């Protein structure tokens, strides 16, 4: 019918419209460069002062002035930076998917109670079996440092399973949302009960978990976390077309040929794997999942998920790196919890973005 289009032509046809063509490419390029810079910055910052030159040397496999530094950079900071990027991207993608699936601008990755499920798993481990229990599992070799992660994943998986099961029969997405909220409340109530009957030390351990941290992930844990998050992201890569169709509401989507039940299944699966894994390894980290999609929509001036998906992944990774850098309080020996930073700095920033431009993507067809 026509000659094969070149890649450049295809790219040109699919950019968010005319006027934004150049700016979209520009912004993407900036994002990538910015992310690389942030990555290097994140690795150079920390409680222990290590000169940038040594950091670069270590990254290229050269020995540094002190070998504690080599270990710190490779085993502490590199893992932390990588974790932050993965988790930041995972939560942001998950949040985007939830917002579109439920046509709700306030949706976040945990809106279906996945978070509470993970918290329940962790609470059961820490507050009842006790830190002893978790450490009992520690003797099981590779499972040891995964014990908390496993407990959290099982809890999250339980809630996900229930949602998927019940969700098949529910037509209205708002009903599903309410269901998820109720699951979340129910598991949250059980957690509260466990806390109520527990002793202060355990409660403290649980509370610290709930503050969120990228620093607890080691390379051996990364062997599990990385592939799982990549799996979740891989599924997400095939979903932009379906998500775009959902933008006008489920009825129009169906008349376009979209299989609603199947789409819902895959979106929920991807979003839950991403959110559940992030929480399992780093504790519940709030705010990123809600805010980053909005910022991306404003930045790229589009709701087209072909562009939004990579955009939120990059922005989410960068935001997580920034949050972690701040939390490390460079120069001081103390560390702040991640959740405090994301909320404290994130909220005003998003407010600024939304008030600055009216194109706030604050409405969806239901």
């Amino acid at each position: 019918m026509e000659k094969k289009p070149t890649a450049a032509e295809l790219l040109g046809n699919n950019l968010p419209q005319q006027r934004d063509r150049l700016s979209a490419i520009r912004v993407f390029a900036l994002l990538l460069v910015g992310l690389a810079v942030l990555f290097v910055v994140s690795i150079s910052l920390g409680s222990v002062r290590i000169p940038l030159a040594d950091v670069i040397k270590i990254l290229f496999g050269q020995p540094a002035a002190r070998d504690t530094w080599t270990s710190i950079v490779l085993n502490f900071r590199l893992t932390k930076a990588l974790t932050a990027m993965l988790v930041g991207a995972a939560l942001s993608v998950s949040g985007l998917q939830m917002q579109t699936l439920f046509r709700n601008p306030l949706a976040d990755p945990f809106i279906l109670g996945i978070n509470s499920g993970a918290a329940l798993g962790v609470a059961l481990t820490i507050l009842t079996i006790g830190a002893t229990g978790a450490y009992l599992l520690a003797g099981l070799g590779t499972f040891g440092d995964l014990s908390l992660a496993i407990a959290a994943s099982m809890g999250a998986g339980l809630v996900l399973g229930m949602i998927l099961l019940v969700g098949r029969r529910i037509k209205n997405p708002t009903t599903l949302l309410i269901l998820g909220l109720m699951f979340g409340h129910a598991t949250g109530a059980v957690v509260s009960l466990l806390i109520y009957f527990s002793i202060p030390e355990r409660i403290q351990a649980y509370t610290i978990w709930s503050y969120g941290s990228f620093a607890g992930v080691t390379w051996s844990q990364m062997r599990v976390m990385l592939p799982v998050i990549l799996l979740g992201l891989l599924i997400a890569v095939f979903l932009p077309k379906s998500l775009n169709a959902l933008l006008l509401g489920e009825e129009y989507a169906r008349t376009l040929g979209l299989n609603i039940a199947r789409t819902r299944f895959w979106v929920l699966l991807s979003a839950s794997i991403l959110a559940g894994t992030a929480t399992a390894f780093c504790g519940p980290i709030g705010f990123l999942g809600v805010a980053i999609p909005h910022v991306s929509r404003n930045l790229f001036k589009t709701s087209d998920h072909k562009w939004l998906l990579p955009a939120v992944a990059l922005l989410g990774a960068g935001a997580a790196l920034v949050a972690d850098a701040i939390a490390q309080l460079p120069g001081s020996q103390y560390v702040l919890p991640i959740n405090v930073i994301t909320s404290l700095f994130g909220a005003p920033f998003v407010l600024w973005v939304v008030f600055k431009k009216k194109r706030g993507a604050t409405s969806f067809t239901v």
Partner: protein
Amino acid sequence: MKKVILAVSVILSLLAAACQPLMTPPAQVELTIEAPAESPTAPEETEAATEVQVTPEPKLTGDVSLTSEHVSVDYAKNFSIEYGEGYKLLTVLQPWAGAEQAFRYVLIPRGASVPDEAGNAMPIETPVESFVAMSTTYYPFLEWIDKLNTVTAIDDPAYVFNADIQSRAASGEIAVVGSGATADIETLVALNPDVVMTNAYGSVYDSHPKMIEANLPVVINADYLEESPLGRAEWGKFIAAFYDQEDVAAVEFEKVVSAYNQTKQLAESMDERVTVIVNTDYQGTWYVPGAQSYPAHLMKDAGANYVFADQEGSTLPLSFEVVFDKGKDADYWINVGFPADKASLLGLDSRYAEFKAFKTDHVYNNNARSNANGGSDYFESGVARPDVVLKDLVKVFYPDLLPDYELYYYQLLK
């Protein structure tokens, strides 16, 4: 303009919400490191170097007057005993970290009237015959004066090490009343104890507010706030005062003091000092004790160089990085929490393998004497026997100084 106001108010409320987690009182944090959690069996006194003789007065069974000799409080900074005409005044200066008021108790013989000088101190009639213990650190002190059998209720038998208390709780002879908001006040009131002794932290987990409301004779014990090991052990006199046996407790205490000082002198003789780190990381934060802390004193008295000995404060949340940087090459690593072997410790975080102490098998944990739930006697009888703890530490750091001594609270992680 409206938008600005809206934005500002939203930001302020977010700030308030975000600061919630930061408002956990520091006393909570202290708890993980220093709060005692176990019950004791009476440790044997294997070496009592010099014995201080104190002739005890014959105890009168009649209870018209106080029967104990007066004692002084020399090491403990957080309580005092004052003697008046026919009464004793016990003051707990800081019942919890950051408390604004001291708690005072006036101890009078049964049937006596409260003297005016007591002011608003809470009156307690002595000698006490029934005792409710809301912490396990009281048991060893009760054993000093052979009054363990007066315990009628405890908070939770799970972490108790003391076999006697455990069995009596299992048989129902001792009631179990829980703690905090869920404490069983009704049972406590029905027991009608003479004293309910508890620790407090100034937080929502405290047991005493409800108890005071129920008019129970609550006494706050703040031994955990004592920095110095001997100071903590001296709280035996505080508890014994309720039985009019503080002089007996003083005798036991003096034994502890002299044994402690003897060991301390031994350690001072070392020229080459070993370096030490304590505790473990949790979720990227490593809580280390500062210079003004119980473990720091112990390490110093044991002749070791604690890596963070110059950090002011009682407990500090440091990043794993910092502890790694300073402590990776430390000779010894003690107090690692629950793990009982190297594999379990490694299971917590694979990066522990890089520590020199780990590589050279110099990791020691204070859970050699633990009950089934992981409750360690170190936090129970260890509080009353800092001399034994110190000896353990000296044996760990400088084994040749004490060739015939065997570790009691500590064990090597294999």
